């Protein structure tokens, strides 16, 4: 499915009614929001991005009628829109797209009372592609073929990135466990 081009999803032109639009596109809005939030790492920006996408899709609803996999199509569009926003933001503000993981200071450590919040931060600090893939697989429970279509990668490349992302998280979790155990013994 990774080599499937957009044109195969859009065979001919028909007008999509608003009810149909609600049923076929808006039902994915929560997934789109989670994907946008994962890429942009900002809830408000993600909300704006989802709204922008929904409006764009509504304006082009006449070409959406024959999209075979609406979820994959909208998720790919969402990712592209978010990546464009990041690029634009980087050009305007010269902010790095990928932030390196920085060990939390003592104040931040006290804020992170549980392992769950640490894991969230670990995922957020993965490179964009890896965090997008791990969330699409482990949160959205999408097939590798769908993720490949959305990210424009081969299925093998998706599996490799997924493995790397999970291994990194595992290492960080084990390091954290080790650190906690050392602190307790001291």
């Amino acid at each position, binding site marked *: 499915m990774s080599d499937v081009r957009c044109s195969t999803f859009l065979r001919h032109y028909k007008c999509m009614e608003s009810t149909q639009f609600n049923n076929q596109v*808006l039902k994915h809005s929560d997934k789109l929001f*989670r994907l946008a939030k994962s890429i942009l790492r900002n809830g408000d920006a993600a909300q704006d991005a989802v709204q922008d996408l929904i409006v764009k899709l*509504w304006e082009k609803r006449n070409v959406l009628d024959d999209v075979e996999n609406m979820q994959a199509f909208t998720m790919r569009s969402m990712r592209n829109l978010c990546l464009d926003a990041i690029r634009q933001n980087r050009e305007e503000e010269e902010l790095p797209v990928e932030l390196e993981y920085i060990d939390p200071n003592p104040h931040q450590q006290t804020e992170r009372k549980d392992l769950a919040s640490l*894991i969230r931060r670990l995922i957020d600090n993965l490179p964009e592609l890896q965090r997008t893939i791990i969330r699409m697989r482990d949160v959205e429970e999408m097939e590798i073929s769908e993720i490949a279509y959305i990210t424009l990668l081969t299925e093998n490349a998706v599996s490799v990135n997924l493995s790397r992302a999970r*291994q990194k998280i595992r290492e960080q*979790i*084990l390091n954290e466990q080790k650190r906690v155990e050392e602190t307790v013994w001291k």
Partner: protein
Amino acid sequence: MEMMNKLLEKYFRGETSLAEEAELKRYFASQEVKKEHEIYRALFVVFDHEKRETAKVPLKKVLAKQNKMKQLWIRTFSYSGIAAALILALWIQRPQQNEDYAVIHGRRIDSPEYAQQYAAKKVNDINEILKDGLKPMHRMEVVKQNLQLLNKISKTQDRINEIEKTHIINN
């Protein structure tokens, strides 16, 4: 236990199927998680929590608002277009007549030559009327000149009288 270890290793290698991952999720959501696996429980808890996160703003309302705004613009442009078309149609359909004409004694005259001749005749008539009107003024000028002569005689008489008076006083 051994099976779960293998499944976890397979999971971290990115080789598990969705069904196997669902099995892992069920295991970590249960109360039967082994102590050595407990460290990974938070990972699956995070995935479960993130899955429940929803979009904050009801998008249907956003879409409805966007539609209303669009409809308003369409309506405004439509009405403006209709009004402009009506004005244009009226302008195009206006009577294509010669706007230069004269009215003489309540009758419309479209011939410019006739109107010019009529106007020239009227100017001559006015000229004649003015000439006749100035004749009494000429007569009054003659009377005035005659009165001036009489006035001179009167002044001469007064002078003679004064001389006579002076002569009587001296004598």
